[in-house]
């Protein structure tokens, strides 16, 4: 039995794990950096210990200090959350060597699945499809042509050191290949000083679909269904849902079976996620496996009704999973919006500052996993995730309507958030129709920005009245006016210009 869990994380995931500990009567131990002394996870945990200065490398990644806290607190298990040390096999080994339970898969599994090539080989060994492509850099154009023909056009020419779309080219016909390879090579050489080039199959309208898997120490491996994660900005997910509006029951079955086989093959235990790419023709390809709890795990919890953190603890305690033997029947539909301290209309520029006022949405079908509180300073040191809003509905329409309703109920003063942007995405016809892929957000971002600037006449009058009222408050003698501030940043100026259009 676990009695006390040290949570080596912060923000909403630390708070979420503390909540489960509370429900089970397990003591929770938080760690915090200097700037996080009054962060929610510190206030909500049973115990909390400082582990160093603000930068993650000095605190949340400071294994030495964390080891000391393990001893001081007499915790008997460590939950890493996601990010930070969660996929660090060496840390997992350190925890186990110190005599504590590691709430995650065994270190060797973390190491295996963390190596992209090894994970790909394991997937291939159980006949899981992987994106066809070269596994070694191409040395000359003849080889490129040969491999491209094997894979089938269109193909993607991409640089080894690439990322974020740089050094990437789509080639539709064989006769465009040479020029594309050459241009990609020279671009890559300039950008990353690395001219190694690979070729892989270009997927049309790809979807990012993942399967939540769970394995206990009694040999049971189950799939808990899929999550659709194709709404992404800068290759980061912002909106997830389950079930996927794109997946039919046949494909769902195939993805689940493949995920279970991969999970079994790598001798996994605990909660894991197998990620796939699925193209418009419903071809699917193994992408990678995340060996930890996923940010978007709540949408799965909402439809299956099980607390996944509780199941993680069961596995670590050597118990059997509590999912029934018969197939799970997910109920209804769930959608999650990640709420970031950033402005979607200004190229997702992060926003820092003090949260002056904060009201959360409530009512039927709404779950909020929050990581911030009123009065808290948002610092630039960590991921700008403020929390996650999850709505449940009998069907997709109801979940979507609740998401719009509850996003509208938010009230955050002091920082900019992605809430207005999420509202427009959820309200957009592509999302409403459930017809979107990983490229959709980029395609519609222009129209979202335009919508973001529109204000009805009534709302403009309301804004005017409010500003006058506020002006009267800050200017007791109506004639005296506060002079303009002397500083102005490009971002706020841009906001101003946008307002003037």
């Amino acid at each position: 039995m676990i009695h006390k869990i040290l949570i080596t994380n912060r923000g909403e995931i630390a708070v979420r794990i503390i909540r489960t500990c509370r429900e089970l009567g397990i003591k929770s131990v938080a760690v915090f950096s200097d700037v996080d002394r009054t962060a929610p996870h510190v206030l909500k945990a049973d115990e909390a210990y400082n582990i160093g200065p603000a930068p993650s490398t000095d605190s949340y990644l400071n294994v030495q200090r964390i080891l000391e806290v393990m001893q001081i607190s007499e915790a008997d298990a460590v939950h890493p959350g996601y990010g930070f040390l969660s996929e660090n096999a060496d840390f997992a080994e350190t925890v186990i060597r110190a005599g504590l339970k590691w709430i995650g898969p065994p270190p060797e599994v973390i190491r295996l699945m963390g190596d992209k090539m090894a994970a790909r080989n394991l997937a291939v060994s159980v006949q899981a499809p992987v994106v066809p492509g070269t596994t070694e850099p191409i040395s000359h154009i003849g080889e490129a042509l040969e491999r491209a023909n094997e894979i089938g056009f269109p193909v993607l020419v991409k640089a080894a050191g690439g990322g974020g779309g740089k050094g990437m080219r789509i080639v539709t016909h064989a006769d465009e290949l040479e020029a594309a390879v050459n241009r990609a090579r020279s671009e890559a050489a300039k950008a990353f000083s690395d001219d190694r080039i690979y070729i892989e199959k270009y997927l049309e309208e790809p979807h990012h679909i993942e399967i939540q898997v769970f394995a206990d120490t009694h040999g049971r491996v189950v799939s808990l269904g899929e999550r659709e994660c194709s709404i992404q900005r800068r290759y980061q997910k912002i909106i997830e849902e389950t079930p996927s509006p794109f997946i039919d029951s046949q494909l769902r079955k195939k993805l689940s079976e493949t995920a279970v086989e991969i999970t079994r093959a790598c001798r996994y235990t605990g909660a894991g996620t197998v990620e796939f790419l699925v193209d418009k023709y419903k071809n699917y390809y193994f992408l990678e496996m995340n060996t930890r709890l996923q940010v978007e795990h709540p949408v799965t919890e909402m439809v299956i009704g099980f607390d996944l953190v509780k199941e993680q603890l069961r596995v670590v305690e050597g118990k059997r999973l509590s999912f029934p033997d018969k197939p799970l029947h997910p109920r209804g539909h769930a959608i999650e919006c990640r709420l970031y301290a950033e402005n979607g209309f200004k190229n997702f520029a992060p926003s820092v500052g003090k949260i002056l006022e904060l009201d959360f949405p409530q009512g039927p079908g709404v779950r909020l996993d929050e990581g911030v509180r009123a009065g808290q300073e948002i610092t630039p040191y960590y991921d700008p995730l403020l929390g996650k809003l999850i709505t449940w509905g009998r069907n997709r329409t109801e979940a979507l309507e609740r998401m719009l309703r509850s996003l509208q109920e938010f009230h955050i003063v002091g920082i900019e958030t992605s809430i207005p942007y999420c509202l427009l995405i959820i309200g957009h016809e592509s999302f409403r129709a459930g017809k979107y892929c990983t490229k959709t957000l980029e395609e519609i971002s222009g129209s979202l920005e335009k919508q973001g600037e529109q204000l009805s006449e009534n709302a403009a009058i309301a804004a005017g009245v409010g500003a006058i009222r506020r002006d009267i408050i800050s200017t007791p003698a109506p004639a005296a006016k506060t002079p303009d501030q002397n500083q102005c940043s490009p971002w706020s100026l841009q906001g101003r210009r946008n307002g003037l259009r």
Partner: protein
Amino acid sequence: MKYLTTIGAVKLEFEVNPDTRPFGIELLKSSVKMDCRQLSPNSFSLLIDGKSYFLTITENDGGYAVTVNQKTVDVFVQDETGILLNKYGLSDSSSDTLGKIFVPIPGLIAKLFVSPGDIIEKDQKLFILEAMKMENEFTSPVAGTLSSIFVKTGDTVNKGTLIMEITI
């Protein structure tokens, strides 16, 4: 007392009745009555002809950033004195600060795209600030000539640091 508000291209004139102040505000020309109550330092409830609006308002660049229905607009307020000053061209311009580029968040200067003396176009990329594990591209809000750069690549800068100056 008359007030003029400017929201983008929209200009609206209001009359504030000193007798019913602070609740009584009317839209000039239409005489629509409004009831505006402060809920907290930055939040207000407004009823206009029965329509209910929840507003959050913070100061911003000499005006106010007003959020209504999850949309934020910049509103500039002038009272009678200000309107008069403006009429005679006496308003205090802040154009001399327009070319000064400050960073609104702390971070690391990851890349500089320009050098002193460069002719800068509006919206041209100036530099990249790494903050919160992300690269943030800054573009020029104005056209002009880059007169000075106060940082170099690799510098860690605080919130509000002046990075460069563009002469318009």
